[in-house]
């Protein structure tokens, strides 16, 4: 929980936008061929075009694949569900959250949606916000209770 309601917040990564209403992800889209990248490209990996525009990525999608990581580098809490979500044609890497991390609760093809949650507060009182994908039939959608399971 944040220390005060007015404390500053930063996204875990630049392609997560948290200061423009509902959080969403953005990508750099090639203006020639439409290929999307979450970090910068000097030229498009698909068509070699050099012009890009920042676009909003759909926040709902289908879980195309996943794994349940039980063994990770020391310091990374396990188990967690890592996956790839097809967000209306744009593939997004992310964890599946707000559900039990077992094959009975996570399945390929399940509808999911973007959610955000705090991962900690630094010494200046700034809170970092991460994103994940939760089952789309999950009804607790406020951002602050999402990381608590």
């Amino acid at each position, binding site marked *: 929980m944040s220390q005060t309601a007015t404390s500053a917040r*930063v*996204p*875990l*990564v*630049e*392609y997560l936008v948290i200061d423009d209403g509902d959080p969403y992800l953005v990508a750099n889209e090639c203006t020639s061929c439409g*290929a999307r*990248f*979450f*970090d*910068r490209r000097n030229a498009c*990996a*698909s068509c070699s075009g050099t012009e890009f525009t920042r676009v909003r990525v759909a926040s709902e999608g289908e879980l*195309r*694949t*996943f*794994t*349940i*990581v*039980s*063994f*990770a*580098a*020391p*310091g*990374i*809490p*396990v188990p*967690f569900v*890592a*996956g*790839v979500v097809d967000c209306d*044609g*744009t*593939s*997004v*890497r*992310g*964890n599946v959250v707000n559900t039990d991390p077992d*094959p009975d609760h996570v399945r*390929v*093809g399940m509808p999911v949606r973007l959610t955000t949650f705090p*991962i*900690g507060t*630094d*010494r*200046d009182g*700034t809170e*970092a916000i*991460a*994103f994940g994908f939760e089952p789309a039939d999950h009804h607790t959608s406020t951002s602050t209770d999402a990381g608590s399971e």
Partner: protein
Amino acid sequence: MSTSDDIWILGIRMTKFGKHPDRDVVDLASEAVLGALADGGVTMKDIGVIAAGNLMNATAGIGQQLQKQVGQTGVPVYNVANACATGATALRTAIMAVKSGEVDMGLAVGVEKLSGAGLLGGGGVAKADGDTWEPSGRFGAVASTDGRIGTNTMPGVFAQIGMEYGHRYGGTTFELFARISEKNHAHSTLNPLAAYQKQFTLEEIMGDMMISYPNTRPMCSANCDGAAAAVVTNGATLARLSGEQQRRAIKVSASVLTTDPYEEACQVLPNVNTLTRNAARIAYEQAGIGPTDLDLVELHDCFATAELVHYDNLMLCDEGGAVDFFESGAPWRDGTTPVNVSGGLQSKGHPISATGIANVWEVCHHLRGEAGDRQIEGARVGLAHVIGLGSACGVHVLERSAA
């Protein structure tokens, strides 16, 4: 191209894979190299070029270290690094040098010491978060993303690759993937050079420590030490050698290296499929054969989930038919297309840079009729495949000498 331009493996050797605490990478590379030279009936004086790979210490110049250990003849050395395709890249580099006509004989070697390396891809210990959230790197991340935005671990990446295949075509289960591992561990019991020769029951595999669902520990490639080396030459040179050398020489009917062409999602989850399919297609064209002509295949089963998708990528089955292919018994050593009769990376082991030459050695061993208890009878044509994330794919098609 005349037959004098054909490429041949004259000598080839792999070390025992496993733990070699008393020997360093130079010792292991030397054993493989001296073995390959002796196997081919030649010496370092005959070698015109050396291509060498050692991924975990890629800046150390393993090729020159090797020369200082077994013979400094002043020939050019190419130290290569291409992830898990490093060995195949070294072999392909030596082949290209011979094929270009610059040299008559080339040496390729790959070596790794990986025992106790632990989890690969996770970057060791997770980077501690800083006192303040400072954006850094290409994603402007204020903290470590591994484990927060997916996983960097190899077992996790390849688990997703297998699960994605299941999503696309259906039929995959935890048990199916475990049965692929059961096959390879069973095969390894006949391979004295494998790191592990222990047979596992399906229950043992499924009940072992879960690493990254659906891959349990025995379904992951075994980190170990090892080296492999090969001497390659052209047809014109081979024709001047002895009848015995000509009889044991193995023809390289295809030598292909590819990278992954851009496709949606390929920069989010590595696409190991398209570049493998491309390499296989080119290899079959070069060799003038089809998948049904193969008597055995050594493919890159870095995880049980990876082996399944490569049945399809190498076109050993119809597109989407990998599950049926496995269920038919085809990839068992008594099946129609034996796959990984060496035990594969899961059991034989995966000393990264050695793998892409060791799998060629396995195929050559059968084509020469020298594979002992695990010999695939009458083997005439085989294929060796590796893939390194990033990505690079190497495919070599090998044929028994007609001599």
